[in-house]
């Protein structure tokens, strides 16, 4: 009886693991927008607005440049799928490895990179000036931020003696107090790199279409209709994916260590709460900070890298 309940719960957790991120992603985006609006003394749109946007885009006709090749048409699907596949690896509510074969953090980073690779190609595919420089900037930032992401998670991996994300989360929870200093350092590194990876302030402005400042938006300028919808959705999943990584790797307290219903319920609530806090953090940063000039970004990214490297040095 306990066995069958366990299995049922496991399947449930597995499904949750797969669908939770895609489903809640637009909401998180909406929440951040809302908080930002409130902080900026605006009323802002509803937190559900992103769902409506995506839905509307899905139903719209699309326009495609005749110069575009199959790369342009194929990219949104691949991007969406890589983001979702990457999301499966992230521990959301439990430290148990639900899918035993996934969860390696390098795989996660590189799977996400695959999406970016194609997105950058798609940006160049239509031959417009915007798309090209958007790709260039995106790849520049992505190349530099990859080190920060890898290293900040590596700090934890070394402490945990594993590169599996769920196991890292489980191990970090048990770390002695002195080890928290490197964890905090690594988190600062992670935060910077994550903002870059998800195209937030001070790296990119997700809400702009000004040619001088945009990176991500420039690449996808040619997209419309359902392809745009997929891309928008994927980027919001990407954001919540990184938020989840941040909250569950660096602050894993409350993650369910076994598959029982009460534990799962508590950890789900805790997880959502942590994500909400993180949303406040991001919104705060975006409100309090100006976007940096492009050539100032590398300094910040190298800072992230160095912070994580120091953290590794401190972690024995």
């Amino acid at each position, binding site marked *: 009886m306990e066995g069958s309940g366990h299995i049922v719960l496991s399947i449930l957790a597995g499904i949750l693991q797969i669908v939770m991120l895609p489903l809640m992603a637009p909401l998180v985006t909406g929440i951040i927008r809302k908080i930002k609006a409130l902080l900026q003394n605006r009323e802002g749109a509803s937190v559900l607005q992103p769902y409506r946007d995506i839905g509307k885009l899905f139903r719209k006709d699309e326009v495609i440049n005749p110069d575009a090749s199959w790369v342009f048409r194929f990219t949104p699907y691949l991007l969406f799928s890589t983001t979702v596949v990457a999301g499966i690896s992230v521990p959301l509510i439990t430290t148990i490895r639900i899918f035993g074969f996934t969860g390696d953090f390098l795989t996660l980073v590189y799977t996400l990179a*695959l999406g970016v690779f194609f997105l950058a190609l798609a940006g160049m595919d239509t031959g417009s000036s915007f798309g090209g420089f958007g790709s260039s900037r995106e790849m520049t930032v992505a190349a530099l931020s990859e080190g920060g992401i890898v290293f900040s998670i590596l700090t934890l991996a070394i402490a945990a003696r594993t590169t599996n994300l769920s196991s890292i989360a489980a191990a970090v929870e048990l770390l002695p107090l002195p080890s928290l200093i490197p964890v905090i350092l690594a988190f600062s590194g992670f935060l910077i790199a994550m903002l870059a990876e998800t195209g937030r302030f001070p790296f990119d402005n997700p809400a702009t279409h000004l040619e001088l400042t945009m990176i991500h938006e420039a690449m996808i300028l040619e997209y419309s209709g359902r392809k745009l919808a997929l891309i928008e959705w994927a980027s919001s999943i990407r954001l919540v994916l990184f938020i989840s990584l941040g909250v569950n790797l660096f602050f894993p307290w409350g993650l369910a260590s076994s598959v029982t219903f009460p534990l799962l319920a508590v950890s789900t609530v805790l997880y959502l709460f942590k994500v909400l806090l993180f949303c406040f953090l991001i919104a705060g940063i975006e409100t309090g900070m100006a976007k940096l000039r492009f050539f100032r970004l590398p300094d910040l990214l190298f800072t992230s890298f160095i912070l994580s490297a120091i953290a590794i040095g401190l972690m024995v």
Partner: protein
Amino acid sequence: MPALGTIDFWVFIIPAWFIAGAVVSLLLTRYDHAANLAGGLFAITGAAAGILFAVSILMSGTIASISMPTSFPWLSVSFRVDSLSAFFVLIISLLVLLCSVYALPYVKHYYGKYNIGLLGFMYNIFIAGMIMVVTADNGIFFLIVWEIMSLASYFLVIFERDNPEHIRAGSVYFIMTHTGTAFILLAFLLLYRTTGSFDFAVIKNSASAIPPLVKNTVFLLALVGFGTKAGIIPFHTWLPSAHPSAPSHVSALMSGVMIKTGVFMLMRLFLDIMAPSPGWWGLVIVALGAVSALLGVLYALSEHDIKKLLAYHSIENIGIIFLGLGSALFFLSIGDEAVAALCLVAALYHTFNHAVFKGLLFLGAGTVISETHTRSLEEYGGLIKYMPQTAFLFLTGSLAISAMPPLNGFISEWLTFQALFSGIQLRSAFVRGVFTLAAGSLALTGGLAAACFVKVFGTTFLARPRSHAVSHASEPKLSMRAAMAVLALLTVLLGLFAGPVVSILSKVAAELGGFAGRALAPPADVWSLGLRDGFANISMPVVFALLTGGTAVVFFAVRAVFQKGRTVTCRTWDCGADLSPRMEITATGFSRSIIMIFKGILKPTQQTDTEYNDASMRYFPKTSVVTLKNANIYETYFYRPLVNTITRISGYFKKIQSGSINAYVLYIFLTLIGLLVVYVMRGM
């Protein structure tokens, strides 16, 4: 001579077959087509035999060897093929097979212009040289075949000898590789001084008697010598100019396998013959690897010549191989054989992978070049519409080299990362620092490589044509596409079946590291691949399935749910002006931001040429050309001063030949007096 049909016989017959092919090709030199066919068919059959031979050695685990004495006492024609040699024979044969298939139609455009018989001769000699290099068992014999390989490749580099640029590239190549050989010779001579033999087996048996100072000197000499061939920074300067000068299928071989022979010999020497080694050897190699990987990719980014760019990526990938190799040496020195096995597997795996995807990319580049007659990225564009299959294959190669899952580049890079992570967990702060920086360099390298290949693929195949060069491009001959397709398939298979590959490589590594028989290899089966004590595990089939399946599901789901969407084809809004190719981003423009970020390392020089409509009123420029180049700091701060110093010294020596007969007689006089003073004084 071993009996016909035994495995030892094949050791001898495979190189002999290539040499026969070389001779036949040369004899047919008057008939271009026959020479091409002969050279190609001999290479293809020889390579097929080589694959079978290598696989049978790898599978059976036997060691094939033959040795024939020669007229010279210290020289014997000795071959010995253990699993490491067999592994390299396999890589070489595999790439040779595909490149030769590719070359059959490719070489046609040289008909009538250059000597095809000679090409076939040099090509087959080159292959025979490579095969013999990885199977030689005597130092002098090794040096001979090593130089044969270098010489043949030199002639292949200058094959299009009317172009002064190729001649210059060839000269630099020859000079550097010959100097490198001198370092190798010196290393062997030192070993000979202490062990009294040039035979690898003898040296290995008395390796423990070599004094540390000699051993360390040999290490440094061999590192310089073989590092030059491998193209490790700072000895790489020949590589970016030499590889592009050769015909593309040869470039593929040079980049894909020839430079690996340097890696092979480093493995052979340090892990096998001279083992055990002190820890700092490994750290030096790791550091060199880290520097080469990062700088290689940065130089590649600032390059617009497609073949040069690929050549720079070879430097990068050799750096990655060095990371694995160096870590293996280091872990062996501290006695951690299990991790050493992992590191070696990473190095070997990446060696294989790089051969496959670099071969693919060079063949692809060769196709593009032969269709457009230019090597400049700035003149391509939109080729995906003229040659969709080539584009797809090239994209596969690009993804593989950028370490994108689920292709093969990812898995070896993943293994290398894991190797470095093991180093980071060590106790010594210094060692940890080295490994941390190396891992950082690798992480950065991966990202930059992806950026670079976005640039290459984007500017070459996507968007609109940038020049007329593209307009007459079309798909190449079937066999050329087939060769590339097989390589592309291999990038997938090598990624998908990482588990079985790793278990084979583990055997090679175990034999090489001297810990055969102990189960130290990373546990691997068809489905997954894990590291000791569960540090990490990965399942490539699942990653593959998820990515392909996921994409398919998304695609069909979206199709199914939103059927109503209409797709309109319409030009991009162009603000009223015609969209022209000049509005597309250029290769230079694409990488400019990265170059500027790393300007401390790359030292870019920018040159702007502006032409105005009106001489007096400089408000409306007609054209403006920005040229972004990297200062060649090795040239400026090392090679150029070196050459200048030698030239200056030569100037002093030249003054001996002053032209004055009185001075000449005076030399004789002074020599005589000087000798008398020295010797008669000493005799007293």
